[in-house]
């Protein structure tokens, strides 16, 4: 266990593992996402109330789901950075923050597109939407702070503190639809209950959520690899890797 933990701290070891994992992540992600989206868009039954317009759920929910859980992952990595000073954790935070920003934007955008036919408006200032917007700002703040500090180590630790402070927003997003009366419908998936939609709808949704997770894993590995190469550019193994073409 401890040996694994130490290995995980080594950028070189992670670089190799990531290279081996990435084809699987990419293939699985594309496969699941395609299956979920094609099933959802073409074969899942119409909603009795919203007709075909509900089908954007197969893109909206995965992005919103990921947007939040990426932040939680970043928070876990932030704790690891602050407590154990593990290099990889801070590489992770730095690499996935822009991905989280894009996912949050996509979920807000698809939500707006969905809101127009169902609520009759692109945007309402309701709790769910506002807290997602705050999440977008938080991602922006994390990226801005990271870019503003030149020293790598200080940047990592400062960003970790900021990520942890911003974590208070996550439960607010999660429970906003239950705490306040809002336009936004409650969550589709809950750990303790069966989904309130029929299986023909939630199975493709689950597939696309899982697919996007895998795809995110691939993207995170790719970005982390790039960041590792940048940071370790003076080491021998990176020189070997670049010159010979293998790790």
């Amino acid at each position, binding site marked *: 266990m401890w040996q694994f933990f130490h290995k995980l701290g080594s950028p070189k070891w992670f670089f190799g593992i990531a290279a081996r994992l990435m084809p699987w992540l990419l293939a699985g992600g594309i496969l699941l996402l395609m299956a979920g989206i094609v099933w959802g868009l073409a074969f899942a039954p119409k909603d009795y109330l919203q007709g075909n317009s509900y089908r954007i759920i197969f893109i909206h929910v995965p992005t919103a789901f990921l947007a939040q859980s990426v932040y939680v992952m970043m928070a876990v990595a932030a704790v690891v950075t602050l407590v154990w000073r593990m290099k990889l954790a801070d590489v992770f935070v730095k690499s996935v923050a822009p991905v989280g920003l894009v996912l949050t934007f996509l979920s807000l955008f698809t939500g707006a597109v969905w809101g127009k036919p169902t609520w009759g408006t692109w945007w309402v200032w309701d709790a769910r939407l506002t807290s997602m917007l705050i999440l977008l*700002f*938080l991602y*922006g703040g994390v990226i*801005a702070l990271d870019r*503003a500090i030149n020293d790598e180590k200080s940047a990592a630790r*400062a960003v970790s503190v*900021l990520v942890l*402070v911003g974590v208070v927003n996550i439960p*607010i997003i999660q429970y906003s639809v239950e705490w306040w009366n809002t336009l936004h419908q409650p969550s589709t998936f809950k750990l303790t209950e069966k989904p309130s939609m029929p299986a023909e709808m939630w199975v493709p949704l689950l597939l696309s959520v899982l697919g996007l997770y895998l795809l995110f894993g691939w993207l995170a590995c790719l970005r982390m690899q790039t960041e590792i190469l940048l940071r370790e550019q003076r080491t021998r193994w990176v020189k070997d890797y670049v010159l010979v073409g293998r790790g």
Partner: protein
Amino acid sequence: MNADCRPTLTLRQDSVGALAAMQAVFTRDMKVAFRQRQDLLNPLLFFVMVVTLFPLGVSPEVSFLREAGAGILWVAALLSVLLSLDHLFRHDFDDGTLEQLVLQPQPLFLLVLAKTAAHWVLTGLPLVVLTPVLGVMVHLDGNSIGVLCLTLLIGTPVLSLIGSIGAALTLGLRSAGVLLSLLIIPLYIPVLIFGTGTVASAAEGAPVGAYLALMGAFLVLALTLAPFASAAALRISLSNG
């Protein structure tokens, strides 16, 4: 800055208790502030001016101002606290006092708490005192003004506490001012929502107890967690230099 208007801090002895150290930090910050009175006035003037912009820029109609007044005052207060945050650690950072604070045997988060308390007394509290006057100018009724003052009284310390984290994180960075706003405004939004929500609820004659309790919860949460975060951020920023 004139060197002799900044009294030095003397809490070198280990025998100085944490409370005495906090008191020393607090009184020193007050002294520094009162020797530079213009710095105290600036956020207040800013507050008044921002409030003035709305009747002139949007509409001087009584109905509009009555409806939007509480929000305008809250936003203006928020911005003026934000503006003053840059001073919270900056001067102490520049002249090295901050390093001495970090080296003290007393826990840093308590000293940070004392500095934040001084910041609130110097900016937040005057804003609350000024609010009734501006409340009358935006045609709020007496009850709303009372509730507004109460929410600002509970809310501005939260603003100072959360702000201290941002001020500590951005210490010594280029374009720290804008960055500070970017980091801190998202965290201010919940306080703003509940602050103005309380006044709106009071204007409708609904009970405000639940709202005030929630704001109190914000204050307790910020009071217990923010000093730790800003102390950690201060250590990071100092090791950065």
